């Protein structure tokens, strides 16, 4: 199975809140899990990525938590700001297959002032 399931579809938080977006995958051969941020009219921009040999990775206000046994990973945005309002996509890939990305369905995040 190549699917990546993402939830929720949409999320509204207040400034300073910590939105959490979850993804689950089925293919245990996946070995790279990036998150992309997309603003309207723009291409997706790589935000942060994790490999399955670590359980957590932080970059600035963004944190990925990874649970290999549950085949789940999540994105946390600390101290969220209105400028974080965008669509977020999780993805997964296998290096051996040319690294094609399989994307989740996307989460539209709105951070209210």
């Amino acid at each position, binding site marked *: 199975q190549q699917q990546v399931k993402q939830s929720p579809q949409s999320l509204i938080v207040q400034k300073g809140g910590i939105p959490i977006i979850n993804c689950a995958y089925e293919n245990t051969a996946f070995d790279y899990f990036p998150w992309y941020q997309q603003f309207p009219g723009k291409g997706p921009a*790589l935000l942060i990525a994790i490999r399955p040999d670590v359980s957590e990775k932080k970059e600035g206000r963004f944190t990925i938590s990874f649970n290999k046994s549950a085949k789940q990973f999540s994105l946390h945005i600390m101290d969220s700001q209105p400028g974080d309002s965008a669509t977020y*996509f999780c993805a997964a890939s296998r290096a051996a297959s*040319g*690294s094609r990305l399989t994307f989740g369905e996307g989460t539209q995040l709105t951070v209210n002032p």
Partner: protein
Amino acid sequence: GAGVSQSPSNKVTEKGKDVELRCDPISGHTALYWYRQSLGQGLEFLIYFQGNSAPDKSGLPSDRFSAERTGGSVSTLTIQRTQQEDSAVYLCASSFREQGPLEQYFGPGTRLTVT
């Protein structure tokens, strides 16, 4: 240097016409990918190039779709006899595989509308 560029940014065409979409990857990036983003379909993989060869074409939805890459750089995605269901944003991404991760950097996309 510059990021991934795509042209045109918008294309409106009549059903049945052929279209060509262009992608200029980041200089030095050996891998190039095409994806399609449609409402209700999310982002779906179309084709992957390593250099000028395409080891994975499995995402191309029909034989009306083809792509080529020349000189290990520019790529063109061609859609023949366009249909309304081809309307979508076509995204190109590139990566420098020799550097290990699989980080793909996307262009701004070409919005295709088939009337």
